[in-house]
């Protein structure tokens, strides 16, 4: 899948590959022995965060699990 920053797609692919393996083989199995994808994530983030700034995508200050807090429970 393409990244929003055209230059980041290859870095994203490398990171996704690393993450998917870690997620399935370690995280879901309760293995907490460190994250092997830190470095690929850092490289990918540097690229994608730059693209987000350049494209003026308004993500700043959006709280995690943000907008839904005051919604009624069903």
């Amino acid at each position, binding site marked *: 899948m393409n990244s929003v920053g055209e230059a980041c797609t290859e870095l994203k692919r490398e990171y996704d590959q690393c993450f998917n393996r870690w997620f399935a083989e370690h995280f879901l199995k309760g293995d907490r022995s460190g994250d092997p994808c830190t470095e690929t*994530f850092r490289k990918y983030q540097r690229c994608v965060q730059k693209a987000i700034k350049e494209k003026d995508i308004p993500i700043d200050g959006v709280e995690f699990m943000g907008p*839904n807090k005051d919604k009624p429970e069903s």
Partner: protein
Amino acid sequence: MGKYVCCTGLLKNTWDQVCIAFWQRYPNPYSNHVLTEDIIFREVTPSNCLISRRLLTKTSRAPRWMERYLPKHMTNSAYIIEDSVVDPQKRTMTTLTWNISHARLMSVEERCLYQINQENGSWTEIKREAWISSSLYGLSRAIQEFGLARFKNSVTKTMKGFEYVLSRMQGETPSRTLAETATERARETAMAAKEKAKDLASHAQKKQYV
């Protein structure tokens, strides 16, 4: 006020498989409207939950009558944020998805809870809730109706896409047949041709007046 919808879905795969597929579900044959996908934040919390934020770009084709309320440069795509929490101890995944583009015109917020189905432990249940609202004076009712219809349509596509990715992950041939793919392709081509013809016609008309 806005509209509220709630529905449940069932995937005949384990919760683990569904979570793994969740991160690999784009692209799939039902996600042509998803243009880009990025993880823009990710962390494992002290309580061992994985929290992530995904940024998606989707094409957002508005109906003709709505297009005139959109700024020209914004009519083609919309940015969507999807936050999620995967809790491997409780075996739950919660996602919250909403649009950060065109939000005054129409805002769609969706909350999903993925958990193990109580009747069959190797299946996964998805509880989906959505809030659709518009603050466009005078038109909010019509826009919410449109949003609701489109939301229902997109839920169907999401589930089909999920099933496709899950079956591919397990090395099965996805249930979607080649004939089905061909029919859809043909329909898309026809639609594109129709749009192009309309464009040409309107250009021709403009030229006449120059």
